[in-house]
């Protein structure tokens, strides 16, 4: 998969490396911007507050 991606990138290997790193950076940005907040909303910690009614 990654090998095929590497071969699909044109140019000599420094260009390939640059494009590859840019793709990884774009993936990380997308993860941190959209995917991780979405996943975070799906798994909230429980028991952070004990409820308003029990408070004095």
């Amino acid at each position, binding site marked *: *998969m990654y090998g*095929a991606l590497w071969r699909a990138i044109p140019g000599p290997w420094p260009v390939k490396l640059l494009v590859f790193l840019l793709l990884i950076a774009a993936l990380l940005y997308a*993860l941190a911007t959209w995917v*991780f907040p979405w996943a975070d909303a799906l798994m*909230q910690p429980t028991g*952070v*507050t004990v409820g*308003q009614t029990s408070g*004095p």
Partner: protein
Amino acid sequence: MTGLNQTGFTSASRAGRLRFAAVAAAAAADAAEERCLLDPAGVFVAVALDAERFAEDDFTVDDFAAFAGFFAAAAPSSALASTSCSAVSSASPSALASSCSALAPSAAASSSAVAASTSDSVAAASSRAASALLLWSAFSRDMRASLSRLGRVTFRRDAIRSSGSGTIDDLLSGDEADPMTPPPPPRRERARRRRGRPRPRVTVIGVIGELLMTFGVIMLLFVGWKYWLNDIVVGHEQNKSGAALAQQLAEQTPNSEVDEGGIPVGVAPTQTNEQFATLYVPAWGADYSRPIAQGIEQHEVLDHNLGHYPSTPMPGAVGNFAIAGHRMAYGASMQKLGDLKVGDEIVVETADGWYTYRYRSGEYVQPTQVDILASVPRHADIAGGERLMTLMTCNPVWSTAERMIAYAVFDRFTPRADGPPESIRAAVEAARAANGAATGPGAGTNGG
């Protein structure tokens, strides 16, 4: 002779035995060069059948000499082959017989046309020896090429391998074989061809494996994002939010009443999640300035602010001003709650000014012990007269099993006209400078 009967050689003539021995000699010559693994039973059957069939032909010693010489030419590096070469050059049956002791009795018998029982037994012994050699060395490509060039027999390796026991026609296709048939390709090529197509670069298993590894890496990235990277980002945002809130508070007209102690106490917000104060804790960093909002709803309030327990009084009031915040993630506004030392300043800024508390003590409680919010913590039945502040967060880190509590006592009130207290002045002014002239120079003079 029973051994011969078992191997099917009973009807074989001396010439057949000679031929068989010649095959064995060639096999021995090739064994030094190359070995390949064939079905031993298949090879043996093939050779035995060939010998039997060949016995019906007119076979002379000259033929044998040519036969042996051909194999000698096919395998010149072999010592046995060189022996055969000398036999060919002498072109004499007797010399040939003397040069190869194993073949000598059969060769002599052929020339004298007398089949003695002793030579039979020797032939049988040599047949067994040849069989053993063949089982060990099998057929090299040179030998099979030589046989096919002779026009007598063609060993088809595939037929032998696929047929198992094999029939004569499967094993021998000699008479139809083209004498000019090129020899089979070298073994490496054959092996490659046998494995089928070359392995594709992208395989299903490979892609699945890479996807799984990618998923694992993303899981680790998620943890790093949630508890480290996002904490830094969100924490910085909350610091900026708190500083911006402080500037808004500075421009607001205070809605407060001065209590009997001379301390102005604001009116509690009526709306949940309404920001009304900024918390500064110099011990947690010079830029620490987090907004405090009304309510302790986890996502609505606490994920973006410190939360004020609505049941507790406002800052500066007699009683227990209690706030809560996340220990991990969402900016981790109370990550360093356990680092407080006795006497550390905790400053709360409202529209009125700055309320400075000093940390006094801390404890760990169960989440259900809500009486720490009482005016006298843990003693809800006592009406205290102190101005207290309680900071609460989850404990231990990564867990919500317990609560870490920090108690602070009121130290002093600084009116807005006096400017921020000394401990946070640098931080407040830096934040104002960073936010620019959006609020203008009037921000500092609007107090009252």
